[in-house]
Each structure stands twice: as C-alpha cells, then as structure tokens.
C-alpha cells in the first residue's frame, strides 16, 4: 500500500492552485483539469474543488471546515504547489484514491 507518484489515467500529474474569492463551489462546474480551486469568503477557507484526476472528471468538493468530518486542509508552498491532507478517496465514479503533495498526484494502489 505505498503511494506511487505517477501520471493519472487522464494524463494529469500536477495540480496548480488558483484562488477563488467568494462564490460557491458549485459555480465552477467544470474546473479545468490540473487546477485546484479554493473557495474563500470573508477570509474563511470553505472548499477546495478539483476535477477528479482519476479519469471520470467528476467535480470533487472538499470541505475545509475544521469542525466537521470529513475535512481536509490545503497548504501551498512558495511556488503555489498545493498539498492536501488527508488523502482523497472517491467513493463514487472511478473510486480512485490519491494524495496531492506539492502539486503532485500520488496514487494509493
């Protein structure tokens, strides 16, 4: 069960981090692959959104609310490469399971 860094089935291996201010996650119906959107409103980080890198392309919205579960946190480094923890396990569609670390998709196999 070692995570493996590699190219996703969709050919996507890296994630950049644009910021979104205000708005709601459902508004970005089609997040461009390879980008992680943050929904920030009033200084509060609410959601992180991305297209599923597992090939199904479904829009994933991760709750950044620290007070409920499931919850995730997003950090980005000097180059804007996001790290999301914990891992993301898609329960639907393609059922893929991966980490995003320093902008790289690491698959859990």
């Amino acid at each position: 069960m070692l995570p493996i860094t590699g190219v996703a089935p969709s050919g996507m291996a890296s994630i950049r981090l644009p910021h979104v201010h205000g708005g709601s996650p459902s508004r970005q119906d089609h997040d461009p692959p390879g980008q992680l959107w943050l929904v920030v409103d009033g200084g509060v980080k609410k959601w992180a959104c991305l297209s599923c890198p597992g090939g199904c392309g479904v829009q994933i919205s991760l709750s950044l609310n620290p007070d409920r579960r499931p919850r995730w946190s997003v950090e980005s480094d000097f180059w804007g490469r996001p790290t999301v923890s914990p891992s993301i396990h898609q329960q639907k569609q393609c059922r893929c399971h991966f980490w995003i670390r320093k902008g790289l998709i690491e698959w859990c196999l």
Partner: protein
Amino acid sequence: MQTDISGGDDRIPLEDVGAAIREGRGLRPALLYRIVVLDEELNERHLDLNDPVPTGRQILQTAAARSADDYSIYAILPSGEFEDLRLDETYDLRGRGAERFVIFQTDRAFKFTIDDRQLEWGKPIISGRVLKALAGVPTDTYDVYLEVRGGGQDVLIRDTDLIDLGKAGIERFITLIRDTTEGLVALPESDQRYLDSHGIAAEVVGDGPHVGVVLKQVSLPTGKFDYPSADVLVILPPGYPDVAPDMFFCDPWLRLVPAGRYPNCADQPHVFLGRRWQRWSRHNSSWRPGIDGLHTMIKRIEHALEEAK
C-alpha cells in the same frame, strides 16, 4: 371523527405518537394522542388530541389557530417530505410515521437560490430533502448546504432538518456531491479538550459506517439505579458536530431502584460493536452548530439520568 377503539376501559391516559414511531410500534388506544406542532418560526410544542384520526381542522383548532381557513397544515414525513392535510379530511396518526406537523399562513412566497437558480417556495420552512429535490440532485449521493457569506463555514442541512426561510441570511443553498476519505477517526479538537480537561475516559469507536464515543464508567446518581456506574455510548451522526447526536445508550442495562424496572423509553436494545446496549430514547431539537458538542451531550445525559422515571 372518532373511530371505534376496542373497549374504552383499557385506554392509557396519553400515547406519544413520536415515541411509538421511534420504537416501531403502532399506537395504543389512549385518551389523548400527543403530536408535535411547529409554528412559522419552527418553535415546537406538544399538542394532545383526543382523536387518533383527526381532520386538519381539528388539529388547527386544538392548536388555536385563529381561523382555520387562513392556515395550512402539513405533516412532516420521516423522509423530510411534507404532506398536505386538507381541512376536512381525516389524517390517520396510526401508521403514517409522522408525529410532527407544521402550521402556517398560506398567502406568502419565499425566494431563495439553489446552485444559483432562483426558486420560490410557498411555505416558510423547507427540509434538506425538499431542497435537494428542487435542485434536481439525487438525495442519497448529494449534500445540501446553506451558503454563509462574509466569514463563516457553509452549514450542512440533513434531509430531515427544517430550515426557516423567513430568517435573515437564509437565501442561498448549494448542493455538492458527497466524497469521503479514509481518514483516521478522531473527535473534533474541542471535544477532545473537554474530555481531557474533565478527566472523562472515552474511546472513539467505529462500527461499519458508524462512529461512536464510549464514555467509560460514567458515575450514576447515587442510589437511583441498580449499578453505581455504566458505560455510555453516543453515536456521532454524519456531519457531526454540525449535526446533533440523537439518544444515548447504556451498558449494563439500568433499572430504577426500588421499582426494579427500566426507566421510561429506555427498554429497547441497540447492538453496537457486538454489545447489546440499553437505548435511552431522549431527543434534542435545539442543537447549535458551532457551539454544541460532546459537552452538551454529556450534560443532557447527566440530566436524563438524574430525571429518569
């Protein structure tokens, strides 16, 4: 609309429709049948009807709505859907699974958006389930949230949660597909701090999809029960701590001293982690997301044990 009930003599004084639904049994013949009525601000109160098959008008009159014709009454079904009661049609409380009714004036419309679509609803309250239906998303794979603007987290609305559309700030909803992780089971930090600072021994446990907290050997009110202490289980619903835990469970099973019987609404088993727990059917409708947590639940449990009859 009194229907014939077998022999008037064996009727109990009061039957709680909600308790019967939760315990999965039919209504017993009774002199009074207790339902819960909500007003437009979602304030709940008990209403005792002398008829298990009332008309909408009977309920409205018992609730003292000034003129029945200006008001509507809906049953809130267990699924979170609403069922319209006609004024002069009977509604059989025995087996509909509805114990809660909402009453409101009929001539208003409430506007809000879901996923940026403008919608209108003719009632001041709406449930999570109806919101999802209006948004056109599958109820079992999507969550609906109240969007909070200007510095707060969006609030999860469960299928059966009721939302007051008349309140300021209740305007925007979003639906999101549900995803989960394989994260470690952990309590919210504030809960963990509370347990640590109060020296309460607790264990977070998982049983399939369900997560629970077992409070170890909770001291019971002196001399009240046949044991001095018991393990108490609280099951954390999905969405906790935005969402209230319901009921609690004890092991061993507690009997009242000297009566030697189980307390009211505490005689049903619930299996969790392979243990057969005594289910204490105690409910709470005033949970404050962001404020309430395990500390609230522990206070409620202490109170319920103290008050057990």
